[in-house]
């Protein structure tokens, strides 16, 4: 790092501290987002004074021309005069930059350390070379699989890379308000991971990732990109899901009605398969029991049984509606090849495979069924990694609009079946190679345990994180 080659672009102003400073910038020599440096000195623990390079990022720039009177602007406007024809000064803009200090480095060691002594006022501010900035930002990147995630906003030449292994195995969360660039970021990471043939599963509720299918031949000829639509397959063991579905989609049940449902689920055997067929089977059986004058259920009145029949019927109807909505959406994209989601319990390798990107298209499904689908799918895939690791390779699950699957309590969507599943996958997943990437607008919308397990966070612009305190 040859600091002498760096161009001087300004001078540190007035009061400084260890987290930020201001400097006067030469015209057009830097812009917002640029990384800059200033030479400073700090006391060492041995009592010596050590010269250091302080690194910072320009967070804002203000420009003013103290020699340009406001009332002159009125005259120029009223008379339609070009300022450049007049004697008014046009070149004395004063540029003041605010810098957020990133840390300091010692000579010949680019490890960035937190600054613990203020920078020197009146010190020169320099513009480091792109190579040096890149070296600083990725100096501790010792990765076999580096991921290129983009260039610095203010300096295209500085390429930023992160370690793919760390990112995938230790989970990542991406936050930002709508339109801030979350999905673009995810696509960039997916693009890099695809090139490295890393298997991925995307839970796509809006169809944001269908572009991967369209561009597959051109951009990812060596990868398999598959597009699935949900098929809710359950077995008799998945009783909890039926309970939850009836609770959320059907009528609320009284204790005797719940007893009947519980007994019904015990009695009716189902070999496994479509959830809808299972519920339809339950409806038939429940109706039979109700019309049979309760030989099997002496303590339960037929009226209570009919309530359960109606409730199950409602669930079946809603599920059918959602399936049809999803189908209509798929029909609109006739050029895309949709496949029915294979049974993750029996054919996991059709979903997770080396170099394969699987997109589960969930559009049209309400929260609860979508959550149930995701819960069953992830539960099965995780089980395969947990029990027989060789059957499917390690993979990354990308959960777009994650608050639909792992909402915080404040979202008022508790008891979603996917919360427990994803919590388990994210807390134990590192050991079994099941990484999770969660994408949402802000952390407060997500389950706290899950959000806290993400070792990497990529944060875009967020506003109104907490409501401002009122002053009364």
């Amino acid at each position, binding site marked *: 790092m040859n600091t002498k080659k760096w161009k001087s672009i300004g001078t540190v102003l007035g009061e400084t501290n260890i987290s930020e400073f201001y400097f006067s910038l030469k015209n057009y020599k830097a812009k917002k987002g640029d990384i800059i440096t200033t030479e400073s000195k700090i006391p060492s623990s041995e009592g010596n004074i050590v010269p250091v390079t302080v690194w910072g990022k320009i967070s804002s720039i203000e420009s003013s021309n103290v020699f340009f*009177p406001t009332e002159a602007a009125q005259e120029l406007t009223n008379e*339609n005069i070009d300022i450049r*024809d*007049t004697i008014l000064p046009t070149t004395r803009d004063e540029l003041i930059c605010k810098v957020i200090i990133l840390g300091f480095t010692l000579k010949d060691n680019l490890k960035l350390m937190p600054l613990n002594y203020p920078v020197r006022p009146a010190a020169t501010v320099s513009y480091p070379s792109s190579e040096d900035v890149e070296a600083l930002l990725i100096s501790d990147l010792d990765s076999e699989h580096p991921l290129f995630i983009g260039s610095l906003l203010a300096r295209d030449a500085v390429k930023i890379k992160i370690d793919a292994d760390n990112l995938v195995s230790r989970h990542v969360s991406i936050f930002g308000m709508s339109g801030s660039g979350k999905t673009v970021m995810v696509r960039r990471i997916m693009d890099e991971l695809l090139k490295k043939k890393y298997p991925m599963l995307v839970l796509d509720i809006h169809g944001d990732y269908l572009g991967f299918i369209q561009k597959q031949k051109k951009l990812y000829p060596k990868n398999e990109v598959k597009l699935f639509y949900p098929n809710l397959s359950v077995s008799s063991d998945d009783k909890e899901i039926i309970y939850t579905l009836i609770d959320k989609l059907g009528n609320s049940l009284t204790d005797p009605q719940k007893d009947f449902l519980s007994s019904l689920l015990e009695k009716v055997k189902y070999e496994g398969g479509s959830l809808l067929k299972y519920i339809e089977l339950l409806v038939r059986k429940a109706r039979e029991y109700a019309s049979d004058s309760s030989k099997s259920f002496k303590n339960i009145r037929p009226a209570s049984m009919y309530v359960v029949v109606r409730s199950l019927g409602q669930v079946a109807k809603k599920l059918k509606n959602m399936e049809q909505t999803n189908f209509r959406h798929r029909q609109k994209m006739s050029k895309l090849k949709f496949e029915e989601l294979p049974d993750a319990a029996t054919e996991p390798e059709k979903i997770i495979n080396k170099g394969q990107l699987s997109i589960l298209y969930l559009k049209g499904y309400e929260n609860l069924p979508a959550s149930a689908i995701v819960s069953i799918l992830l539960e099965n895939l995780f089980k395969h990694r947990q029990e027989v690791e060789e059957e499917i390779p390690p993979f990354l699950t990308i959960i777009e609009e994650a608050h639909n699957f792992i909402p915080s309590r404040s979202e008022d969507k508790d008891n979603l079946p996917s919360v427990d599943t994803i919590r388990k996958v994210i807390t134990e997943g590192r050991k079994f190679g099941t990484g999770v990437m969660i994408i949402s607008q802000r952390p407060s919308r997500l389950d706290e345990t899950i959000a806290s397990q993400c070792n990497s966070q990529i944060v875009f612009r967020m506003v109104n994180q907490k409501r401002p305190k009122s002053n009364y």
Partner: protein
Amino acid sequence: MSNETDIKNKIKSNSSLFTNFVKNAVSASPKVQNNFLDVSTQVALTVQRILEDANLITNLEYKGKDFWSENKCKTSCFVDGGVDKTSIISSAPLSIRTGSYIVKPDAADKNREFFEESMVFLGDLYDPKNELYDFAEDDFDEDQMLNKKKDGARIIFEAVTIVKHILLNRKFDYCFLHGPIEATVMPFTVMGFPTFTKFAVENMLPFYNKNKLNAEARHFINVYLEALNSIKKSKFPIYGIVETSNSAPYIKNLLFNYKSKGTISEKDFKNTLATIKKYKITDSHLLEIILQSGQAIKPLEVKKQIKGFSVTSGSAWEDKMDSFPSVHIGYIKINDHSAPIRIESLNPSKNLIKDYEYILATARLLPNYGFPVGLNVVDKFAKIPNWMSKASRKYYATHLLKQAIRSKDQNTISLAVKILSKKVRSWRNRPLGGLVR
């Protein structure tokens, strides 16, 4: 509407005349207050008649966009000085500088405008080794002498800045000074006013004969006269522009000329002068109600340094007063709501109307303030900001305390602390009179 009613209405609606009226209300007798409106009206009518008779009022043209489009090729220089008002007991720190704003609108960015710090002095006037004034044991009132020294330095620095531009053969179309082109030198003729050091004079006027730099040649009067004579020889027009006139040199000279011609009688002349003095009527006040927006009065040649004042009378400089060049004074009324600005030059204008129109256009860029914007710009540039004053105060305070501590004398140290704890010489430090309660 008659002229008289018109003028009366103008006086009533005019803010700066109202200020004068209020001043009179405070200081003058009730009778004077009552007469103010009538007297002002009468004087204004008389002056207006004379101005019209002499064809001195002229209309200027201002076509904003077209004017600047035609004049963007002209190079103008604006000069102003700034003085730091720092005050510390036992020392007289002085920070003074003059700045120039040079602008050629149609030049490329790099050459369009320049801000130059032309003259700078930082020092202590009580320091015997200061580089500006020779040290003199003043028997004159200390504060007054100090203020005169500061004023003298500023006046010389501003004049010398223009001289330097001339010596550097700068190709200006116009040069403007913020303030009178020739200051009244009478206050510097007092006994004991120190001379400039050789070093200062050599730096200010490098063409001055070094062998003749005796004390007399280094006195303010001679150095300033030399600078003015250089300015008078300039090839480009130089104007001093005064924001508000607190005196009535134009009116008085106009009346004097008419008395000399015999147009008005000696008695009327004296009576009018007495009225002007009594009612504190100034050029600005009268011309404000006589002139319309965009009108100017053509310059009159005026002697600024006049023999026979009580201060100069008998002074060694009395005879020197005649050597000073006379000044051509005119006025321009920029807009309806501000007083006319005074335009001074040492030479008669070759293109008076064009020059005045240029001044009007530069002032119209500040439609409310009504003062040439270039001078407003250089005023901000040359001004010594507070943070600089604070820094110099801190420097002198530290210097004083260090010297005291070095002496290791407890009395000196405590004296230094006392001096520093008193911020300024003020009325609070004066002994109390009367009964102490």
